């Protein structure tokens, strides 16, 4: 699909093609490799400038691994990651680079353009460092400490809703929501173009979740950021994403504009997932689709379509042939042999 649809788009910022990350399974005395967990297997997606791409899926479907493999925090097994980098170009105009071909120094430079926000607001901040040290760490790594650094940090703190006097404090003195704000301020320190948010709100309680999501939305406008927003909570993803990619056992099942995907899913898995979204309407008849069986084991995946053992619309073809991710409607991709032919139910956007 990549060859027909994606490249012609001018404002694409990041393009991922055929990304794979296999973790070896070792066994026996000699630690022989007996198989692979295909955590991420042939993942394709792209992010446009200033856009939020939601990446959803059940736990263990490889969404976090995909996010980290993009940055080569986990070295991908195969695939291509192309990124329009500002930091690496000498002319000042953004330039296409292939992240997997960069050497260490170049990759470090690209890290100025892409940063990360982590799930655990406690674990992602070093408890022995002050807020100032935490936020300036990216600057220190890239030799960008100057006389105006403190002012810069204070501005960042104020921008994420913290107070200037918090600068000398330690992480343990903050609440979970505040800590996540510190993490957000840190991710903004180098003025990136793209932030990979790895479940940034799933450890927070609901009221704080909303505040944090609104903050992320505001920052996106202010700094012209793009997000890859990894999450498992569909209502959170719906709230923040422009487009959503649904993952199932290491593969993208469907990718489309948020509204389109939620109201008119084209993949049976998306339909089942949508039916699980709780809706605050007591008169609505429950129509949850209860899926049979378990999630496929990425170490021992079924042949054909990975979803076929649980699919309500399964046909013989699904059991042998792996469906490709193809563009069914403009900007709406699905990896199902019968996408577009099935009549699937979505949810109304509220």
């Amino acid at each position, binding site marked *: 699909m990549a060859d027909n649809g994606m490249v012609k788009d001018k404002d694409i910022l990041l393009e991922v093609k055929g990304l794979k990350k296999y973790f070896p399974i070792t066994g026996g005395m000699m630690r022989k490799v007996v198989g692979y967990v295909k955590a991420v297997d042939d993942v394709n997606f792209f992010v446009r400038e200033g856009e939020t791409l939601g990446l959803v899926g059940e736990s263990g479907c490889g969404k976090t691994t995909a996010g*980290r493999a993009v*940055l080569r*925090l986990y070295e991908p097994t195969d695939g291509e990651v192309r990124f329009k980098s500002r930091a690496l170009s000498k002319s000042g105009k953004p330039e296409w680079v292939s992240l997997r071909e960069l050497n260490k120094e170049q*990759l*470090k*430079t690209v*890290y*100025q353009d892409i*940063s*990360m926000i*982590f*799930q*655990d607001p406690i*674990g*992602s*901040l*070093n*408890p*022995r460092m*002050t807020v100032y040290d935490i936020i300036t*760490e*990216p600057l220190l*790594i*890239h030799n960008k400490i100057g006389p105006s650094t403190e002012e810069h940090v204070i501005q960042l703190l104020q921008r994420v809703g913290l*107070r200037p*006097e918090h600068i*000398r*404090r*330690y992480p343990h*003195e903050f609440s979970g929501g505040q800590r996540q704000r510190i*993490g957000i301020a*840190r991710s903004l320190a*180098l003025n990136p173009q793209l932030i990979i948010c790895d479940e940034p709100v799933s450890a927070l309680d609901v009221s704080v979740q909303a505040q944090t999501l609104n903050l992320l939305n505001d920052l996106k406008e202010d700094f012209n950021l793009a997000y890859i927003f990894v999450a498992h909570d569909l209502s959170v993803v719906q709230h923040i994403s422009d487009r959503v990619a649904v993952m199932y056992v290491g593969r993208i099942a469907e990718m489309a504009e948020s509204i389109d995907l939620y109201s008119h899913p084209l993949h049976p898995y998306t339909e089942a997932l949508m039916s699980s979204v709780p809706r605050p309407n007591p008169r609505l008849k429950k129509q949850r689709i209860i899926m049979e069986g378990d999630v496929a084991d990425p170490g021992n995946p079924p042949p054909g379509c990975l979803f076929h053992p649980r699919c309500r619309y399964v046909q013989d073809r699904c059991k042998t042939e792996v469906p490709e991710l193809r563009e069914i409607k403009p900007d709406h991709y699905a990896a199902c042999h019968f996408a577009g032919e099935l009549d699937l139910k979505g949810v109304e956007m509220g």
Partner: protein
Amino acid sequence: MTDAVAIPMEEKKKDAVKISQSYWSLVWWKFKRNRLAVVAAFILAGYYITCLIFPEFFAPYSKGLESDYIEARPTYPHFVDAAGSFSLRPFVYGLDEEIDVATRSRKFVVNESVKYPLYFFVEGEPYKLLGLIPAKTHFFGTDPANPDAKVFLLGTDRLGRDQFSRILFGGRISLFIGLFSVAVFLFVGVTLGAASGYYGGATDIVVMRITELLSAFPQEPLFLALGAAVPVSWPSTRVFFMVTILLALIQWGGLARQVRGLVLSGREEQYVLAARSFGASDRRIIFNHLIPATMSHVIVIATLKIPGMILLETALSFLGLGLVPPTVSWGTLLQNANTVRSISAAPWYLFVTPFILFAILAYNLLGDGLRDAMDPYSK
């Protein structure tokens, strides 16, 4: 309305004044409440000032000065003389040499008719303070104008050298060995442990197998063999450094294993991943994130290790396998007391023991205090 405005203002003020407590200031605060540990810290400070830094000043004589008083008994300071008259200035009695008719051995007896008053800050043998500044003043001593006046607080040895002075000078070597070998021990243990935990793989396997080999080896014969391997012809300073490094190299295994464990768990922390996502180098992650996380643990181990090193040096030197005379250390001083004859004839040779004892005790109390203070789970 005015109240509503005033309250947040006040809150803000309080907030600005509040100073954050860093981990180390909390440790210090907890440590201060442990009286025994604080006393131990003061005792150790005293040891290091008198023995390690300024023994030339605190000792009345140099470590090599030989007097005519061979194995003379200690002359204790008195305030009240035999006649019962009190003087504020302490004094010591003179010593007379006597031949014991029965054993035909010479011994010294106290002559209560001769009194030598003691003075503070007296002029004595010239020396160089810290090896640099020439000086003559000693902390205490007898009247320099009277060459017969001597003070031997803890007696003399076979060559007529003052025990007290020699114990102070011996402390310099023994205490320094404790510090220096623990420094080497820390360097080797932390470096190899951190490398082993962080890089894993072949590094880990090699390092861990070496530590297992070292811990499986019976330590005493290993010390004896290595100690015996140091050539006799070597100058004393080289032997000294050799012994120091030997002590460290045999013992680093346990520390390396603990640091490895801490680094292994620290490596998986999200803040390490965060640092990597910003492009931090391995070196930065190890030195700024992983090793600081092990420090509270390592400092306690080091503090508890120093007395072990001091004792090891003492034991080795006592057996004649570590340092050898003329180097003065607590171990070589104890060699004087290695026969029954010498203990019965000159029991003051054993005065080295309380000095060692209190140093070890103080270190252990200090280590315990630090461990309690650094334990994040204690209240």
